[in-house]
């Protein structure tokens, strides 16, 4: 040992003399790579914020356009018949011939529309209307006799949009309640199905089932939650509706109806409600149950009088989230509920929900800038606000539970 040390000391020690610049710098260096990576990571996180902003800006902006665009409505005569062109009109003609004895009651300078072309009325002499063609950057087309003439109407006010009960774009009526009524009816049916079943299933899984039974049953709910909604739509249309028709009668229940759509939507949101409620019930501390058993309660009394009230905020949260899911659900209603935007709460009728209407409009031939196209965004904005509010309430309610027992 000593010998070794001696040898070591005999080695010439390399004397390192460092100038001030060469001194080993142990301070944290700024690494360019790390900074770039951190910037990218921040950007990834910020994407979600950008998405939210984009949703609000895009929906808001286009919805604003909707409220600013004038509506078009059919021009009708005194007998409420739609007035159409009496003779063909070629690409350059500046006069427009109406059927005998039917003047149109529009002021001069008013705008009228044939097909996609907008014209400005210059003068009206009996059945002949002189117009300026291709106004508002529209292209001039030839119009065959029988083409419908539409006149420019007022813009849609927000109040009218939110309180109107008629959705008939061809007469300039855009009352979203016609669509909301179907959304409410179907969501109501869905909740009536899903809430008792979901909570019942949750109580069974959390209070009654043994661990192994639970592990076997839960995947079934997960599969149910993973089935694409278009499949549920098919299920409603080709299976549930015929069965319901067999019970209620084909004359009372059409091929498209809100009842089948609502029932199937209930099955669809059942897993959401069941698993959220189960989480809430399992979060209730064991001591509460043991206290209840200690007082001689049966399992039922423990579950319904102690555990359920303790976990109620989680169940309410699940309930609200279920409504939000039902309101935003699209394919089931697009397939099974029909395409009638009428104000009705009768589940046996066909009716169109907000989401169903968006699908129908966007699968058609939509040219940008038409009021139909813009109405999509106004409906979308309404839907977004409703679901957002529901989701926020749901999360808030759920957090009360967590605060109570954490």
């Amino acid at each position, binding site marked *: 040992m000593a010998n070794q040390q001696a040898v070591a000391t005999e080695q010439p020690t390399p004397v390192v003399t460092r100038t001030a610049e060469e001194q080993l710098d142990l301070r944290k260096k700024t690494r360019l790579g790390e900074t770039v990576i951190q910037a990218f990571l921040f950007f*990834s*996180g910020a994407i979600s914020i950008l998405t939210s902003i984009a949703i609000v800006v895009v929906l808001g902006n286009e919805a604003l356009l909707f409220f600013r665009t004038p509506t078009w409505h059919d021009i009708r005569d005194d007998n409420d018949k739609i007035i159409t062109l009496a003779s063909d009109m070629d690409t350059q003609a500046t006069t427009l011939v109406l059927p005998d004895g039917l003047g149109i009651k529009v002021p001069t300078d008013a705008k009228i529309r044939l097909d996609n072309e907008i014209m400005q009325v210059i003068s009206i002499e009996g059945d002949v209307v002189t117009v300026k063609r291709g106004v508002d950057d529209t292209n001039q087309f030839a119009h065959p006799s029988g083409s419908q003439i539409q006149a420019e109407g007022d813009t849609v006010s927000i109040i009218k949009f939110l309180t109107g009960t008629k959705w008939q774009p061809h007469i300039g009526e855009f009352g979203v309640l016609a669509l909301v009524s179907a959304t409410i009816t179907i969501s109501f049916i869905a909740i009536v199905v899903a809430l008792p079943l979901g909570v019942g299933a949750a109580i069974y899984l959390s209070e009654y089932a043994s661990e192994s039974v639970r592990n076997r049953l839960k995947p079934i709910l997960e599969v149910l939650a993973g089935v694409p909604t278009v*499949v549920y739509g*098919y*299920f409603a249309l080709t299976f549930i509706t015929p069965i319901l028709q067999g019970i209620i009668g084909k004359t009372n229940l059409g091929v498209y109806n809100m009842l089948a759509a609502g029932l199937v939507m209930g*099955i669809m949101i*059942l897993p959401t409600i069941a698993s959220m409620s189960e989480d809430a019930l399992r979060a209730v501390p064991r001591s509460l149950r043991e206290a209840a058993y200690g007082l001689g309660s*049966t399992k039922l009394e423990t579950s319904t009088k102690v555990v359920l009230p303790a976990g109620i905020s989680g169940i309410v949260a699940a309930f609200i989230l279920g409504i939000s899911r039902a309101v935003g659900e699209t394919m089931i209603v697009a397939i099974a509920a029909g395409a009638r935007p009428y104000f009705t709460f009768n589940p046996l009728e066909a009716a169109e929900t907000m989401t169903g209407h968006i699908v129908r409009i966007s699968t058609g031939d939509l040219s940008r800038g038409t009021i139909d196209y813009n109405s999509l965004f106004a409906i979308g904005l309404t839907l977004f606000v409703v679901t957002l509010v529901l989701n926020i309430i749901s999360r808030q309610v759920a957090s009360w539970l967590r605060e109570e027992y954490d």
Partner: protein
Amino acid sequence: MSIPENTTTTTQFLPNEQQVQKNIRRRNRQAKFWQYVFLYSIILAMFSLFMLFFSIVRQVFTYVAIYDQVNPATLSDKPLEELSKEELGDIIETYYTGIRTGRNDLRTIVFQDVLGLSINEQESIADRERAKETVTVREIFEDKGKEYPSALADQSIIRLQVADYAAIIEENLDQNSLYDFVTQKVVQPLIVDSWPIDQYLFDRSTIDAEIAEIEARLRVEKDDPTLEVSEPEFRSWIQWHLLTETIDLSRPEDAGLRTAIIGSIWMIALTILFALPLGVGAAIYLEEYSRGGPIARVIQTNIDNLAGVPSIIYGILGLALFVRVLEKITSGSAFGLGTGGDTANGRTILSASLTMALLILPVIIINAQEAIRAVPDSLRQASYGLGATKWQTVWNHVLPNAMPGILTGTILAISRAFGETAVLVVVGSITRITVDPSGPFSRFTVLPLQIFALITQPQAQFRNVAAAGILLLLAILLSLNAVAVILRNRFSKRAV
């Protein structure tokens, strides 16, 4: 005085032994009853799932009634299977001479089925002919090593007559193939109606009545009193051509889903490409770089909110943002790409993938966050202790450990994207698309969208095709989910 009073009140308010027993029995009965109610709600959920699958399967395996659009009796006096090659050839010639587009139809059959020419080869022949060059029968047939009647050797291959094409077909097909040709293309059996298998088993009389009705109607319509609709025969709508053929909206029995499947694969691949790095990046930022900070809290709330936004809202966003505003980029015209009129607007695979990426981003982020949070802190401390930088720690230790969890979340997100319809109804278009997508700037359709389009077809047999498509879709989704579950189990075992 007070003692007797007390005893009376006690005996008044405390139930006696018998009452107690009765009460307990009642409470226990009640408990038992409700236990079954709770059990039945979960059994009902299972039952719904079973019925859901049953409703699909019964539409996939059906019994169909077929009638021959061209009555075989009018083609030949003998039954078709007894005819010789020459007689079958004559039938083909007579049949195609009788229909207006016969020559073109027959030429297409020779080009595609006999010679196996690709579209490009066919077009190059047409181009050369347009340039007044004669493409001879000998040239093409010798090139492909097929037999041709020597009388036609020097003639132009696209200017042959019906009789010549028929002769070529007769020369190149054997007896059986020729018989199949006649029974398929000439006789043209058509499915007139289909019935679910359960109805066939339990309700034959209704089916027979309906067949009789259809037969009577067709006899009047076609003015052919000998016309016959076949007895119901079994047909499975899951067939190989589902994967190899494209959609044909005139013949449900030949309709395939190839275009939609390829579209789905393209869309999913691009979606992962966008969503995975961004999603994992966001999760790392939230968990490793700014945990608990004010920015992280804002982003977190935001992500939770986005996760609850209905998918159709994303569709509208995609329509306005990617299809319209960024049309130049998403249609490929900014890069001078895109195949002209086919991709004139922004309804491309790229738009769909970008929208879908935004939709599944919250799912990926939330799952990746959980996986990263589950990585024990000791690993990070050890790494820092050895002098690693933050990123080195994340890249070399946190990410590899969190990978199974991240993958599980990603697979779940993919399966969501695979089945998602509402977004693509708005961003894509459900109009008939029969051309396979060739790149990010192609128009497209995907499996669930095609299913939706099939459901909305008026002809009932398309519902059977839709059911077959749904079965395919469910099979893909269930296998994806199974992979996710296996990954998760393996992950949780290792963590313990």
